[in-house]
């Protein structure tokens, strides 16, 4: 599903440039649930943003679902993001003046789905994350866990190939984190490819594979026995 070859990325900081990714090679198959770990500043978010076409690598090759992602203009990138990718952010990034249902429907709007279908799908995904009753509420009326579930519903709404989550549980307490992970595992069980950036070992262990970054290179890439989050959730 994802093929990454020798990706380099550096940030210009005035005179000198800071090398953040120094040759990343990574293959991720369909249906995988991968945790990307590493200390702060190791380049996890940078890698995820490149995979999400929000940022571009300097050199190297990135193939997503058989499509070579290269020299995209913004419009093309927007179409690919919309079609291939779903994002979940640490800070939820819901649009605060839109209701839960409107937030979930937004990627469908950009997909030019008609209004009725959009509303139906948005409601269906909200129900899937257990928030059917909350469709008409604004983000400000919801808890962190609920907001993140709305964000997950939104990321799923456009039926992307890959779900990219940058510290999705970073702003949540342990119990809520497990609830969110339970949801992510369920989605993965249905066959969706998911990448999660996390700092927490217990969250990483709920994935099927752990990739460790250090100073811009992968230092470890192992398959793990998945810990089911459901057992911690009543």
């Amino acid at each position, binding site marked *: 599903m994802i093929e990454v070859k020798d990706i380099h990325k550096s940030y210009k900081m005035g005179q000198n440039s800071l090398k953040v990714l120094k040759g990343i090679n990574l293959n991720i198959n369909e249906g995988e649930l991968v945790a990307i770990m590493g200390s702060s500043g190791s380049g996890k978010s940078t890698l995820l*943003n490149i995979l*999400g076409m*929000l*940022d571009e690598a300097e050199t190297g090759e990135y193939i997503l679902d058989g499509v070579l992602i290269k020299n995209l203009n*913004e*419009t093309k990138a*927007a*179409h690919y*993001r*919309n*079609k291939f990718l779903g*994002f979940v*952010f640490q800070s939820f*990034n*819901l*649009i605060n*003046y*839109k209701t839960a249902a409107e937030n979930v429907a*937004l*990627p469908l*709007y*950009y*997909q030019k789905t008609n*209004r009725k279908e959009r509303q139906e799908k948005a409601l269906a995904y909200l129900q899937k994350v257990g928030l059917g009753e909350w469709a008409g509420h604004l983000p400000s009326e919801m808890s962190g866990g609920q907001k993140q579930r709305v964000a997950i519903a*939104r990321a799923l709404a*456009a039926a992307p190939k890959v779900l990219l989550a940058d510290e999705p549980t970073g702003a949540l307490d342990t119990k809520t984190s497990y609830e969110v992970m339970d949801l992510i595992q369920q989605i993965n069980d249905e066959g969706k490819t998911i990448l999660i950036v996390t700092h927490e070992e217990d969250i990483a262990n709920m994935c099927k594979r752990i990739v460790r970054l250090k100073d811009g290179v992968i230092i470890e890439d192992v398959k793990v026995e998945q810990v089911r989050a459901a057992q911690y959730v009543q």
Partner: protein
Amino acid sequence: MKLLFSRDTWQEIFGSIRKNKGRTVITVIGVLWGIFIYITLSGAAKGLNNGFTLEFQDMATNSMFVWSNQTSVPYAGFKTGRRPQFKISDVEQLKTKIPQIEFIAPRNVKGMWDGSPAKVVYGQKDGSYNVYGDFPSLVKIAAKKIFDGGRFLNEEDINLSRKVCVIGERTQTDLFDKEDDPLGKYIRVDGSYFKVIGVHKFEPGGGFESDSDIYIPFTTFRKLYNSGENVGWFAIAAYDDANVTQVEADVKNTLKKIHQIAPEDDRALGSFNLGEMFNRIMGFANGMTFLSLVVGVATILAGVIGIGNILLISVKERTKELGIRRALGATPGEVRGLILLESVFLTLVAGMMGIVLGAFVLFGINAATQGLEFPYSNPTVPISFVLGALAIMVVLGTLIGLIPAQRAVSIKPIDALREE
């Protein structure tokens, strides 16, 4: 186009407008004020214009007056400082020499510049008023509105040297009691009794005359004041298609020849043509219209620039939101379109409100100036001006909107998302 008519587009726009109520209100007020000023100013200027036109409609704008001063160049054995005396015989000569003359009225006056005003007595009341010796043709040159029941001088009055007079509105109120109908009454003018045959209404703007003037037949005047063949000055109307300024020059040249004035003596004869004055006043009114147009458009421009500014701030405030939208698949074009439409929509709504408000104010001004002695009438803004203003606003709204729209997409989505 599809974007423009989709319900979703408008929902997005209303969403963001509703979210930023304060901003929206301030923006709208800016443009509203601009278009309001524009509409009110140009309407008021139009009213002034209409007022002047109305003022002049009773006057032959192709009319002129010519009088004599003192000569300033010695000629044909005459020294300078002579005052040429127009004669009644000049009329025929002028008429034959200058075919463009339609009407010519020789005039004399007692009062004004020729001696002291006549002493006029009616019953116990008296007063001093200017008395004019006139021909009936005067009304063809400078219309006189005569109140109901009365009339102006006629040919018979001239032929019979009748002792009849037309008095002014103010003369009437000065000399007659309210219930006393002046028509048919006799007033004493410098010792002679005159029958009042009409009361004329005062029309402002018609030169030096006033609402207390008394008109008597030219021939009667001649007898009363022994003016003989003398004429004080001429009032002349040219045909509609004639150039008054040219006629004015021709008349003066002819009179110079008759009265042996040096052709190069510019000071010996004085003249005044209403056409020129009319043009000057209309020029002033048109200038006002133009000025109000300029000021109005500038104010609209300022308002629209205000919208641009506020949208720029709003785009900055919404950086993160726009970043989220782009992460979810909004293309730069879609983001730009959203901002642009918002700009145009705000401009238009504000503009229409301004037009309505301006129309109300014009309505108020019209009502307030009703019946006032002020040249102001029917202040309307031509529909083409209104449509033009709306078009200008749409165009400016789009152009101004382009700046924040471009700003919104110039930042990379990843940087936009990082924004707090």
